[in-house]
């Protein structure tokens, strides 16, 4: 499945009883199983040149990791140490003082260059580079999307601090939650939970298999998620759990429980059993 597959599925609103399932298989499994491909493309990592030199390229030279985390698009700062104009690109050697230089290739837009739009940057100026890492013959270079001059030196300080911040968050985790999901580690542990839903889990009491639970109710309201998690944690809900029991057990108000139950019913996640106010989870 391509990374677009999920989004296409979500576009079909009316798939009857399968609607809930179809929605999840797109948005949830997409964020887990294919995280290697899809999320790489989606985030921009601030790095120092030392980090790029330390980066590990995969066997097929397609995947590059920093701190054990796949990286594709990066932003970096540095001083221009050499400029080599070529017919199709300009290769800059960029140095930020952290260990050697890195080659940054800025492809020349042939249509633009006729009007002389691309002027190479002069030596020793600080520049901000935004581009993709690529590995060729074991040597990593940056294919620049964008290079511009840094006018305010504080941007250099800022970038170095931001690079450090991201490194620390990835290697130690965020103070409040498990943002970084190293390959296999966190992602394998929790079914289909994305990091957002995990924050919600820690807010209420039912953290047991809450991550897996959230996969089914990802598109639902917070109340519906709470109800679903409560029903999962309560063994009585196999035969059906009454509105009074839910209120007593979860502390939710009656109106909230009924609204949440309505929503879950509508999504085909629960069904009514002995009466209209008693529900059981529809197992998949």
């Amino acid at each position, binding site marked *: 499945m391509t990374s677009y597959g999920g989004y296409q599925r979500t576009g079909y609103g009316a798939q009857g009883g399968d609607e809930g399932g179809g929605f999840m298989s797109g948005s949830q499994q997409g964020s887990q199983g294919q995280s290697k491909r899809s999320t790489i493309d989606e985030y921009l990592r601030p790095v120092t040149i030392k980090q790029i030199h330390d980066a590990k390229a995969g066997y097929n030279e397609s995947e590059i990791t920093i701190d054990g985390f796949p990286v594709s698009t990066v932003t970096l700062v540095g001083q221009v140490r050499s400029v080599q104009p070529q017919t199709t690109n300009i290769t800059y050697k960029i140095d930020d003082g952290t260990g*050697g230089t890195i080659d940054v290739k800025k492809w020349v837009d042939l249509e633009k260059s006729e009007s002389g739009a691309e002027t190479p940057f002069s030596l*020793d100026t600080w520049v901000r580079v935004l581009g993709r890492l690529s590995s060729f013959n074991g040597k990593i270079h940056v294919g620049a999307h964008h290079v511009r001059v840094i006018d305010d030196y504080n941007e250099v300080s800022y970038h170095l601090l931001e690079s450090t911040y991201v*490194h620390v968050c990835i290697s130690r985790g965020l103070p409040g939650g498990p943002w970084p999901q190293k390959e296999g580690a966190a992602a394998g542990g929790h079914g289909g939970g994305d990091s957002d839903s995990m924050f919600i889990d820690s807010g209420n009491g039912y953290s047991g298999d809450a991550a897996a639970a959230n996969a089914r109710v990802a598109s639902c309201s917070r109340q519906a998620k709470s109800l679903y998690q409560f029903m999962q944690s309560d063994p009585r809900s196999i035969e059906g759990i009454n509105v009074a029991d839910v209120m007593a057990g979860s502390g939710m108000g009656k109106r909230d429980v009924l609204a949440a139950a309505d929503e879950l019913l509508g999504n085909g996640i629960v069904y009514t059993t002995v009466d209209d106010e008693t529900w059981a989870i529809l197992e998949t």
Partner: protein
Amino acid sequence: METSTPRVTCAYLNSYVGRNVMVVGKVAQIRGEDAIIDADGNISCKLNRDAHLVPGNGVQVIGKVNPDLSVKVLSSLDLGTGVDYNLANTVVEITHQHKNLFTNE
């Protein structure tokens, strides 16, 4: 791999004698071939021919630390007036706390 030029302030100079370092500070004084740069403390610098330092402006200097803790300037870059020196000094501290990101010693 080429060696890094660690970012330092005045206080770190004695750990880097004989090595190339990068200093960001404010030009406090220029006297002929010598200049004093304030980077969390005064550093005396031996300027090269190309150096164009402006008193009161920020400057980035790359140079070699002499045994007397002066810096022989190899390259200098005027940074203008908008430099946040507290921030620059903080960056130096951070780069020494996370050497794996900033130096290859």
